[in-house]
């Protein structure tokens, strides 16, 4: 009887110990085609819609295409810079592009041609641990977002700051990931300031997000350009709001 009791105690302890073992569970990134590990997306350049600092773009609207929690986006922009890493249980692997003739691997990846592009996670031995495909498409249009919407025009008071963001889309309307360089300009000098996003050290005037600061009442047009694609948005600066 005593012996049976000892067996049951040992079994119970083993059960508890198994339950207490740390379970390796990393929900970030996207599972590779072989299911051996997860590929993770990293922003490595300014102007990547995946890593915006402001709430100008409604992330719920773009989450499916651009991914969340370092998921690999469905589509990246041709010419957009990004990086991928790979992790699996205890194994290290470096990521390389299947097509090195059209995918640059310096400081992240830049895809020069539209289409499907496989990325391989390779172990030090050269063997392949896993792979994933990313589609590249050209930027066909830009949208200007402010306060979670795509307005026909924006309005701000003298002294007010308003975060605005440009979102690149392909010819089918899908948002595109991948960093790129933007040019922001105002049709009238001195009426608004175009400044980097406050509090973000990665933000520059070449970013996809900027802040407009109202200076002088009136109307003007702000233009943002990425490559050979531009969009204009009318801006109205209203009188200063007194507290």
């Amino acid at each position, binding site marked *: 009887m005593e012996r049976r009791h000892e067996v049951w105690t040992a079994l119970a302890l083993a059960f508890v110990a198994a339950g207490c073992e740390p379970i390796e569970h990393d929900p970030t990134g996207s599972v590779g*085609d072989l299911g051996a590990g997860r590929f993770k997306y990293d922003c490595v350049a300014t102007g990547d819609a995946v890593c915006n600092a402001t709430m100008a773009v409604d992330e719920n609207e773009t989450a499916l295409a651009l991914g969340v929690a370092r998921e690999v986006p469905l589509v990246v922009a041709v010419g957009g810079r990004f990086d991928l890493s790979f992790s699996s249980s205890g194994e290290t692997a470096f990521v390389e592009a299947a*097509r090195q*003739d059209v995918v640059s691997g310096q400081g992240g990846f830049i895809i020069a041609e539209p289409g499907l592009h*496989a990325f*391989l996670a390779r172990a030090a*031995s050269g063997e*392949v641990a896993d*792979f994933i*495909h990313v589609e590249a498409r050209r930027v066909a249009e830009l949208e200007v977002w402010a306060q979670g919407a795509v307005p026909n025009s924006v309005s701000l008071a003298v002294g007010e700051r308003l975060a605005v963001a440009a979102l690149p889309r392909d010819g089918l309307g899908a948002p595109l990931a991948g960093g790129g360089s933007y040019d922001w300009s105002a049709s009238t000098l001195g009426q608004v300031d175009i400044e980097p996003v406050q509090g973000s050290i990665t933000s520059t005037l070449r970013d996809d997000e900027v802040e407009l600061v109202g200076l002088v009442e009136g109307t003007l047009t702000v233009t943002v350009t990425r490559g050979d694609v531009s969009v204009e948005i009318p801006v109205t600066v209203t009188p200063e709001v007194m507290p």
Partner: protein
Amino acid sequence: MSRWAVLAAGLLAFATGCSTEHSLECTLVSDPPQSVLLADDLIEIPAGVAVAARIVAIEDDARRPDRVRLIPQRVGIIGVEEIVDGDREFTLWGMEPGRTEVDVFFDGEKVLELEAVVTDPRIGAP
């Protein structure tokens, strides 16, 4: 039937019986996002696409446990590497449009060649 015909038939049967037939049994184990042709003597894959396949050595219609190695003759057209912890599984990927032969080794001995064709994905693309 003349004696020569009988002799020739016998020699032919003897020769056929003595030659070893090598081939591969190739099966896709991942879903390629674009059309990939994987036959026992031909691989056709678009540039930029990767696929996983189980490749088994066949000798005289029987599966063999030999370690298979695949080495493209031209570098930079098609990539072929074994999968980590895979059971005779390989990843094949199109590196650049073009053609090459792929040398097939069973346990270190070259036994046959496959033809690999890497297609240009822009051709026929919308």
